């Protein structure tokens, strides 16, 4: 739920980083915190356990600059990835404008990824939000690890696509980040849409800003 304040000329949007435990959600925020000028970001707060596992959420406000005379403020949140924190995880989704799903590319974590993605769909549905209709980007993290699954397999499991029913959207939409691939395509006579995806190594910062940029653009596009 973006909030436009005409009095202070600010647009506030909420982005949530979702995904399985230890997948790199907090690392994404930490990298952004470290790289963005202190003038354009607030303090990062982490409600974490003693072992640095996210208990409730991490929060980082970032100003992306001024557009049309409005200051654009993005509030970045992570959720606790561990399965048993679902009650608090669900709370953070309230009023979300855009989602980044941080998947752990390691083959061993495939099941945890799928479970978390299903949990995201379920939690969104409980709020009446449709994940296929809001800004949604998938980040395949930890691409540097030797046991990282091929992108093709990750896409098949986590981003198989959804049917596009609106006639106006039934046209091929190329994926700007991956030449030769499409975000909307005709597969076996059916129109199918997919979430945009980015590869990342969040500990090094690779792909972190590409992901943030992609989801922010989608969010601001919903206001245009």
């Amino acid at each position, binding site marked *: 739920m973006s909030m*436009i304040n005409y009095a202070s000329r600010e647009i506030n949007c909420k982005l949530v980083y979702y995904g399985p435990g230890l997948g790199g959600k907090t690392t994404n925020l930490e990298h952004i915190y470290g790289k963005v000028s202190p003038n354009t970001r607030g303090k990062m707060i982490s409600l974490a356990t003693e072992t640095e596992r996210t208990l409730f959420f991490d929060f980082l406000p970032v100003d992306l600059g001024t557009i049309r005379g409005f200051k654009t403020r993005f509030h970045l949140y992570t959720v606790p990835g561990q399965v048993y924190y679902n009650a608090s995880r669900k709370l953070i989704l309230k009023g979300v404008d855009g989602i980044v799903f941080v998947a752990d590319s390691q083959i061993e974590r495939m099941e945890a990824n799928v479970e978390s993605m299903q949990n995201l769909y379920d939690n969104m549905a409980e709020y009446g939000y449709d994940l296929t209709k809001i800004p949604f980007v998938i980040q395949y993290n930890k691409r540097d690890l030797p046991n990282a699954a091929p992108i093709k397999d990750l896409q098949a499991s986590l981003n198989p696509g959804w049917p596009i029913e609106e006639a106006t959207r039934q046209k091929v939409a190329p994926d700007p980040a991956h030449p030769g691939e499409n975000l909307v395509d005709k597969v076996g006579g059916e129109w199918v849409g997919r979430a945009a995806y980015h590869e990342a190594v969040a500990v090094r910062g690779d792909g972190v800003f590409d992901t943030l940029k992609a989801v922010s653009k989608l969010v601001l596009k919903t206001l245009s």
Partner: protein
Amino acid sequence: MAGAASWSFNENDFKQIQTHLQAFLRDSNARCALLVDRNGQLVATVGETPQFDPTNFASLTAADFSANDQLAKMIGEAEFASLVHQGERESMYMADVAKRVILVVLFDQRATLGLVKLKAKAVVGELNKVFEEMFNRVGSGQAQQKGLLEGAEDEIDKLFG
């Protein structure tokens, strides 16, 4: 619903909110009043300028209120419409406004909890009216938002260099 609905408020709404909150602070002797939306975004601050980071404060307030909402449901209550956190010197009182916004009142020994609660009840009634009116305007609000950021993609690209 595809996603959460947006809302917007204009200068006039802001002035009304300020007027109500200033009167409330005068009557209750509280130091500062903040309005935070349920998603953790700061809407307004009136009274003494807080010494903390208001953005962080707002996100924690919303999380605190939401967590307590769930706790209320677990014990069979529809909601906790207000919450109190009492410290040795500084205290805070939080109350729901129009189910979308939280009024946060910061007060010290110069004010009493009883008076804050009493006066807050009245100002919450006034704020409810202001916000209900604002939300009823959603149609026109969205019309204003449409086109607000047309062509913003290029500008976003520039922002990220």
